């Protein structure tokens, strides 16, 4: 856990404290109020059905576990976003409010700028991606326009299903088929392999909106934040031809005929996929 994570709750506490004395700032009285945010996870798509990736492989998943750490929600636009509609007055006020406690991140152009802290869910757990939707712990936040979120991995994994990860932050198993070739594979990721460019175990600048994949929603009361996981993004750039029998440097399958793609170019495509913000979509609905 790094210092920012430690500071995160304090920042939010400060924001909440300020919100209590500034509820009239908006005129409408709809910004800056403390709210409770239930948290749930949805999985996009049926992983047990073949999904064709960008390289023509039909990928079917038979096992998938993910370590989920803290989730943070922000007013800043998602990373390298497109120009959006004019900012609402409420957002402007919230941004200014947040800046009382969050030093603006004067990032390099193109870098994600978080803006004001708008909410968080701090309890880590392990998720079975083949299970139905599930509830995570409640989080908290403040009302106001929210545009982006940070997903973090917890390492070592925690929760009732943590043993399935065997210390990794992601474990997947499945088959990939192209033409007459079918490869049984396992693809895993460790925390040291999913660090971002700033050496944090997170995906920073994911979209947070009214619907999954969209950015910008006014959190106007107690609500539910849904983290929609899109595992097909993880596999979209995985070229399984690098692990086909006979391919140069292809690892040998185990006794069950399953090949661990670790260290191959197929695995490098997988690691790039798990770092993409489009695999982690956040949305808010008022309860």
């Amino acid at each position, binding site marked *: 856990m790094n210092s920012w994570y430690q500071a995160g709750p304090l920042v939010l506490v400060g924001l909440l404290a300020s919100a209590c004395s500034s509820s009239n700032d908006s005129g409408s009285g709809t910004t800056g109020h403390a709210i409770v945010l239930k948290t749930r996870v949805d999985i996009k798509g049926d992983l047990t059905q073949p999904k064709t990736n960008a390289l023509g492989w039909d990928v079917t998943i038979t096992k998938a576990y993910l370590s989920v750490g803290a989730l943070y929600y922000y007013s800043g636009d998602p990373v390298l976003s497109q*120009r959006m509609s004019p900012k609402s007055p409420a957002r402007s006020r919230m941004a200014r409010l947040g800046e009382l406690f969050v030093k603006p991140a004067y990032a390099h152009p193109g*870098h994600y700028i978080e803006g004001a802290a708008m909410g968080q869910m701090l309890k880590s757990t392990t998720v079975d991606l083949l299970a139905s939707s599930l509830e995570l712990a409640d989080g908290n936040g403040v009302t106001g326009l929210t545009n982006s979120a940070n997903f973090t991995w917890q390492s070592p994994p925690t929760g009732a299903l943590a043993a399935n990860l065997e210390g990794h932050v992601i474990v997947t198993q499945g088959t990939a088929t192209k033409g007459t070739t079918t490869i049984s594979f396992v693809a895993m990721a460790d925390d040291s392999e999913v660090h971002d*460019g700033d050496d944090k175990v997170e995906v920073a600048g994911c979209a947070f909106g009214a619907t999954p994949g969209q950015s910008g929603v006014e959190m106007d009361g107690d609500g539910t934040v849904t983290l929609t996981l899109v595992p097909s993004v993880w596999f979209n750039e995985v070229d399984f031809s690098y692990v086909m029998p006979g391919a140069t440097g292809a690892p040998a399958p185990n006794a069950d005929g399953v090949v661990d793609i670790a260290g191959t170019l197929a695995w490098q495509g997988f690691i790039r996929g798990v770092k993409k913000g489009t695999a982690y979509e956040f949305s808010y609905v008022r309860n």
Partner: protein
Amino acid sequence: MSSTKQTTRLLTSLALGAALLPLSACNDSGNGQGTVAFTTWGEKYIEDGLPSEAFLDKWSVKYSKFLVVYHSVTIADASGNIVVQLDHPLVFDMTKKAKGTPKTLATFSLEAKSWPDVSYQMGPISDDAEPGDLATAADVALLQADQASVHVEGTATSPTGGQKTFSWRFSPATLFQGCHGEQDGKEVEGVLVTNGGTQEVELTVHGDHLFYDDLQSEEGGPRFQAYADADANSDGDVAIEEMDEVPLYTIPIEKGSYGTGALGNVDTLGQYVRTLARTIGHYRGEGSCNSKEVVE
């Protein structure tokens, strides 16, 4: 640019400023008036070249052309209302060195106070674009022909003396907003106009950014070897179309991480360099802005 044209532009800008800021003339705040001059500079990296010491893999780059079109250079008030704005797009060749005074976009008269909302766009190119200081009508026509916001040409030299040329055009316009930078030793949002004073606001172009090996990390740096390797037809010129054929996951880590942060749509080296092109705009030297692709 001729002095007559420069004078015309100054008068136009002042007139536009007056039109957009009707309260300025009858300002009763007692703050007085000051002047903001928007200028641009590509630093030595664009004017003189990037030496091998600047590259992690010891290549070097010399630009022969670096065209950008400035659009909608704007100062807005606290409510987001436009107060002054560049009246038409201006094209600059950042390789051209200014003699004496810096290359200037426009000069505006404003109430002396803090103006925290400064933004500008690179692109789009349009029919009413004109050459800025030291640029030519041919430069404007070149951008117009490709509907490009940025056009760069140059030569890269390897540590062993081998050379590759490049000629790249980048089309999507980029909005740089929420600009902040150092003024008189202090970090300032936008610009602080002082009574009777003139503030030069330099829109700085960072030519090294087109070669950075990570879109997110502050630890990254310029490299060229992976770009050179993309020259699939070995004709000595690295085309963006060739870079489009290089998946990022195939680049060995010793040639750069080519990390993409959380971006979900950058899978090839061509997409990567197009994304880098949206990061070249800075503010008052090392200051910066929040950049976004402009969707027309």
